[in-house]
């Protein structure tokens, strides 16, 4: 019925197309104004949201440290943040060094080639030693800005994540977006290659593998009345939750936040 109506309309006004074209400019202007207005409104909403988040963040956090945006930001921020917090904490660094050393055997059990894993591990241990010897933040900065050391560290944190996922494959299988993928395939394509970005599943696994509690504050419009905070505890005792490292997440990128 509606189709036949529109047909009659066109038939009744043979110059309908022309008149539409003529007035088209005006309609377009209106349309453009409308689109622009919507755009401005959206920007105001975004701006208000950013202002709101900034205000909330500034209540609790004093500084932000920006990390390189190369797809490794989560791991690099984790490595730097963790070592920065524990520069003077020998006990904690010894624990971490032992985890680093032991991961090799776990990876070999999972079928990795011993010497490639060993290669990465040795450089990471060397890096930790250098950081301990220096003992201060400028030295840590220098080491983390040296591409090779920094990249080896990232690579090994990726292996920590991968090994934990594989050793708990049954649990993590249901988290995968593509259920047809096995955890092993997921690790080979989404965890181990450099520059692959990290999602919740990676964060959960790394926090548990290295036994470090993490907090992520999301700035991605998911909530507008309060900050979206996700805590990743390394134990199941959540009453005592205190994050070692806090990240600020903006879509596709992680930076470090420092509490007041």
């Amino acid at each position, binding site marked *: 019925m509606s189709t036949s109506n529109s047909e009659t309309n066109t038939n009744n006004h043979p110059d309908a197309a022309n008149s539409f074209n003529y007035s088209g400019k005006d309609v377009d202007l209106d349309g453009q104004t409308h689109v622009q207005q919507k755009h401005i409104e959206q920007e105001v909403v975004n701006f208000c949201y950013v202002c709101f988040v900034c205000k909330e963040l500034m209540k609790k956090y004093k500084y932000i440290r920006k990390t390189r945006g190369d797809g490794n930001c989560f791991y690099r921020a984790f490595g730097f943040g963790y070592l920065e917090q524990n520069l003077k904490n020998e006990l904690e660094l010894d624990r971490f060094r032992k985890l680093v050393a032991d991961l090799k055997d776990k*990876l070999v059990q999972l079928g*990795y*080639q011993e*010497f*490639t*894993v060993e*290669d*990465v591990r040795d*450089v990471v241990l060397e890096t930790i030693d250098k950081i301990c010897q220096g003992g201060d933040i400028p030295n840590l900065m220098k080491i983390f*800005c*040296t*591409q*090779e*050391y920094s*990249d*080896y560290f990232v*690579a090994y944190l*990726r*292996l920590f994540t991968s090994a934990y996922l594989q050793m708990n494959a049954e649990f993590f299988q249901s988290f995968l977006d593509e259920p047809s993928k096995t955890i092993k*395939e997921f690790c*080979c*394509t989404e965890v*181990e*290659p*450099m520059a692959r970005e990290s999602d919740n599943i990676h964060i959960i696994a790394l926090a548990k593998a290295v036994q470090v509690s993490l907090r992520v504050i999301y700035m991605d419009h998911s909530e507008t009345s309060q900050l979206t905070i996700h805590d990743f505890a390394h134990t199941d005792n959540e009453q005592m939750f205190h994050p070692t490292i806090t990240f600020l997440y903006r879509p596709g990128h992680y930076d470090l936040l420092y509490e007041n």
Partner: protein
Amino acid sequence: MSSSTATSVSNSIQEDEDLKLFQAARRCGRRNAMGDFTVQLAQSGSSLNTPRNGTEFDLVRKRLQKELKILTETPTPGIRIVDDGSDMRKLRIDIDGAHGTLYEGEKYQLQFKFTDQYPFDSPQVVFVGNNIPLHPHIYSNGHICLSILTDDWSPALSINSVCLSILSMLSSCKDKSRPPDNDWYVKTCSQDPKKTRWWYHGKDN
């Protein structure tokens, strides 16, 4: 009647494939140009920003020395180093087609090239010599379509694991043939297979 329908269907699929290949090559052309540019930028950037203190080169050399040592001392059957290790950035390796596969009894040669960023950057790997295996993922110029050689490379892989992946790719092959777009690819591709934007399909590659 039904057979003619089938032909027309298969024709349309071929046209579709053709179009896809064409578009992919165009994409690939642009990507290639971008790729070169990024490499140049990265090189000039790194020489400007980070003073070369030799750590990088040392780590690459140390890693390669270790890999070569293991390859010579505990070789995997069917994988042999040809070079004497004088030029560590370039290496040739002979591989033998596995028993009980379509490639049994055949010998092939692979060439590996490594950059300063190895093992973070994947090695460049191509088949060289007169005998290039006939395989749906290997082009007649020696280029190989294998995801661990670009997208899915990780520093936990090695020369040996690349050779094993290539051998397993050959072993699982059921039909010895060139890739459908072989002629065109060989005419239009860059010398460096890492500059090709590959699409990977299936678990085999």
